[in-house]
C-alpha cells in the first residue's frame, strides 16, 4: 500500500489541497505565536524604557558565553532541520531520520545549557519572587528584568520541549515509512515551527544578554 493513499484524509479532494490547507493552518498558528510572544516583548519594551539602568545591571549577570554557545547550537539545529525537510522532499528515509535525530540532539543540548544557566541564577538568588536577592541598587527593577528573563526564556524553552516531543513522534513515523516524496507535510510544517522558535531566540538573545552591556 503506498503512503499516498493512506495520507489523504477523507475530507480533502487531493493531496495538494490537503498540503496547502495544512501549510496555511501552520502559518496562521505561527501568527498566533508571534502575538503570544508579542505581549511579552511589548512589556519588555515598556520596562526597558522605564528602568534602563536596572536592565543593564541585570543583564550583566547573565552568562554571555553560554548564551552565545546556545545561539550557535540553535542556529545549527535550524540547519539540520532544514536538511531534514530537504531529504523529506526527496523521500530519503534514512537521511530524514538522521537529520531529525541531529535536530533533536541539538535541541536537547540547548535545553541542557539553559538548565545550567537557570540553576546558576537560582543559586545566586536571582529567581524573581519573595526569595529574590540583589545586593546593589534598583533591586525591585532588576527583579522585573529577571521576571522578563525567566518568563520569556521559559516560554521559549517550553516551546523547545514541545518541539522535542514532536520530533520524537516524527522520527518514529519516519521509521515507519510514513513520509515519501509525495507526502512529507508533517516534517515540512514542523520545520516552520522549529525555525520560528529559533527566531524567537534570535530576538531574545540580544535583548536580554547583549543590549546595554558595558
Amino acid at each position, binding site marked *: 500500500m503506498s503512503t499516498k493513499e493512506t495520507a489523504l*484524509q*477523507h*475530507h*480533502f*479532494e487531493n493531496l495538494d*489541497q490537503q498540503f*496547502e*490547507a*495544512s501549510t*496555511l*493552518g501552520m502559518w*496562521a*498558528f505561527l*501568527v*498566533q*505565536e508571534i*502575538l*503570544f*510572544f*508579542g*505581549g*511579552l516583548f*511589548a*512589556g519588555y519594551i*515598556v*520596562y526597558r524604557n*522605564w*528602568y534602563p539602568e536596572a536592565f543593564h545591571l541585570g543583564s550583566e549577570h547573565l552568562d554571555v558565553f553560554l548564551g552565545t554557545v546556545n545561539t550557535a547550537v540553535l542556529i545549527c539545529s535550524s540547519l539540520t532541520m532544514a536538511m531534514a525537510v530537504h531529504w523529506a522532499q526527496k523521500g530519503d528515509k534514512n537521511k530524514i531520520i538522521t537529520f531529525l535525530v541531529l535536530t533533536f540532539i541539538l535541541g536537547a543540548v540547548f535545553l541542557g545549557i539553559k538548565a545550567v544557566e537557570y540553576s546558576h541564577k537560582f543559586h545566586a538568588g536571582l529567581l*524573581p*519572587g*519573595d526569595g529574590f536577592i540583589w545586593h546593589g541598587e534598583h533591586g*525591585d*527593577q532588576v*527583579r*522585573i528584568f529577571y*521576571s*522578563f528573563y*525567566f*518568563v520569556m526564556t521559559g*516560554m521559549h524553552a517550553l516551546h523547545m520541549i514541545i518541539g522535542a516531543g514532536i520530533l520524537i513522534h516524527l522520527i518514529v513515523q519516519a521509521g515507519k515509512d510514513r513520509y515519501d516524496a509525495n507526502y512529507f507535510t508533517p516534517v515540512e510544517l514542523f520545520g516552520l515551527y522549529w525555525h520560528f522558535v529559533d527566531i524567537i531566540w534570535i530576538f531574545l538573545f540580544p535583548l536580554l544578554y547583549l543590549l546595554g552591556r558595558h
Partner: protein
Amino acid sequence: MSTAVFKPRPDQMGDNNEKKTSYLTAGFNIRSWLLTVDHKRIAILYLLSLTFFFFLGGMFAVLIRLELITPAGDLMQAETYNKMFTMHGVVMVFFFLIPSIPAVFGNFLVPLMIGAKDLAFPRINLLSWYLFMFGGMLGFAAIIFGGVDTGWTFYTPYSSTYANSNVILAALGAFFAGFSSILTGLNFIATIHKMRAPGMTWFRMPLFIWAHYATSIIQILGTPVVAITIILVALERLFHIGIFDPKLGGDPILFQHLFWFYSHPAVYIMILPSMGVISEVITCFSKKKIFGYEFIAFSSLGIAVLGFLVWGHHMYTSGQSIYVSLVFSVLTFLVAIPSAIKVFNWTATLYKGSVSYDAPMLYAIGFIGLFTIGGLTGVFLATLGVNVHVHDTYFIVAHFHYIMVGGAIMGYMAALHFWWPKITGRLYPEVWARVASFVIFFGFHLTFFPQFIVGYLGMPRRYHAYPEEFQIWNILSSAGASILGLGYLIPLIYFIWSLKYGERASANPWNAKGLEWEKADSPPTQFNFDKTPIVDQEVYDY
C-alpha cells in the same frame, strides 16, 4: 477508519431521505459523540455545553437583580455580590458569548455553506471542544470552591496581589477557553481559503462566511495576547514577580493595555458572527438579494481591523495621556462607519422585499433596533467628556448589554431558529417561537433601558447597595429581567419538545438560497453532500 454502517431506527428516518444516513444517525453510542471528528456533531457538543453555561451565567444575573430590588444590601454581603457579578461576567463572556455563534453555527455551517465535507482540521476541531470544556471545568471549579470577586476584567493589582478568591482557576479557565477559540479561528481561516467547492468564489460566499472570516482574524491576533497576560497575572499571584505590582515597580495599567488589546476586539468576536447571521436571515425573509453585498463583506473586515485600534477607550480615566485618549476617541468613532453600513444595507434589503415575519426574522429585526441603540450609545461613550461623566455607571452596563444581549444573543437566537430545522430535521412550533421572541424583546428593553437612565443619573456599577432615589429604575430592571428569563426558558422547552414531536423539516423549509439549504438534506448526511457541489449561481439569487 470504521466502515460499520448504522441502520437508522425507523422513527428517525425522514420521508424523503429514507435510504440515507444522517449525521445524527451515523452512530448512537457515547463514543461516537465524544470522539467524533464530524464538524456537525462537534457543533452539537458545543451547543449542549454552551446552553449549560448560558443558564449558569443567567443564574448569577438572577441573584444580582434580586439583590438590587431594594436599596439596602439585604440579600447578600458586598463580597458575595462582588462574586456574583464577576461570575456572571466570566461565565457569560468567556464560556458563552465568545464561543457562541462561531463554535455552534460556524462549526456546523462553514463547511456546508462553502461546499466542503468538513473543516480543514477535524481533529483540531475536536481538540478545541475539549480545551473549551477543560477551561469551562476550571471556571466551574473556581465557582464551586467559593467564586471569584475581581470583576471579569481581572484588573491588577487587585487580581494579582490582593484578592482572596480563586483568581488563578478562573483565569486559567479563560486561558484554555481562549486557546479553544484560537484553534476554531485557525480552522475557519484554512477552511475558507482552501476548501471552497468549485465555483464558490470569494464573492459568492455567504456573508455569514465573511463575518466568520473576519472573526477568525480577531481570534488569532487578539486571543494570544490575553493568554500571555493571564500567565503573567498567575505568575505575579504565585511568585510576586513584580510586573504588575506597583509596590515592586510594576505597572498595573500595563495589564489594562494588554487586557483590552484582546478584550475590546473580543466584543467584535461576539458581534461579527451575529451580524453574519442577520445578513442571512434578512435576505432570506425578504426574498430579495441583499443590498450592498460587497459593502457588508468588507465592513466585517473593516470592523475587525479597526477593532484593534480602539482599546484605549476603556482607559480614559486610568490616567493615560489626554492626547492618547483623543486619538482613541477618534478611532472609536470610526467603528460607527462599518457598523452603520451594515445597518443601512440590511434596512435597504427590506425595502420592496416580500417580507415575512417568521421567528428568525423577528429576532433579526429586533437585532437591528437593539444593535443600533447599543452602537449609538457606544458613540456617546467614545466621546471623552461624556465618558468621564458616565464612566463605571449603569449607563455602561446598559450599553454593552444592548450589544451583547440585544446584539450577540439576538443573533444567536435568530440562528438557532433559522437553522434548527437543518440541524435537527425538525420544525419548532412557530407560534410559540414568535411569542417568545416578543417576550424576549420586551423583557430585554424593560431590563436594560432603565439602566441607561439610572446610570446617567449617576448610579455606579458593581455596588450591592444604592441610594433610595434609584430604586424605581432598579425595580423596573429586575421586573424586566424576570420576563427576559422567562423568554429564554420558552425556547428551551419548545426546542426540546420539537426533537420528538416537531414536524419533520424538508431540506429547505424557508425556501432559502445557499448550499446548506439547496444541496444538503435536513439533517445533512455524514459527509454533507452526495457529491461535491458545483456552484454556478450568484450568491443570494432570490
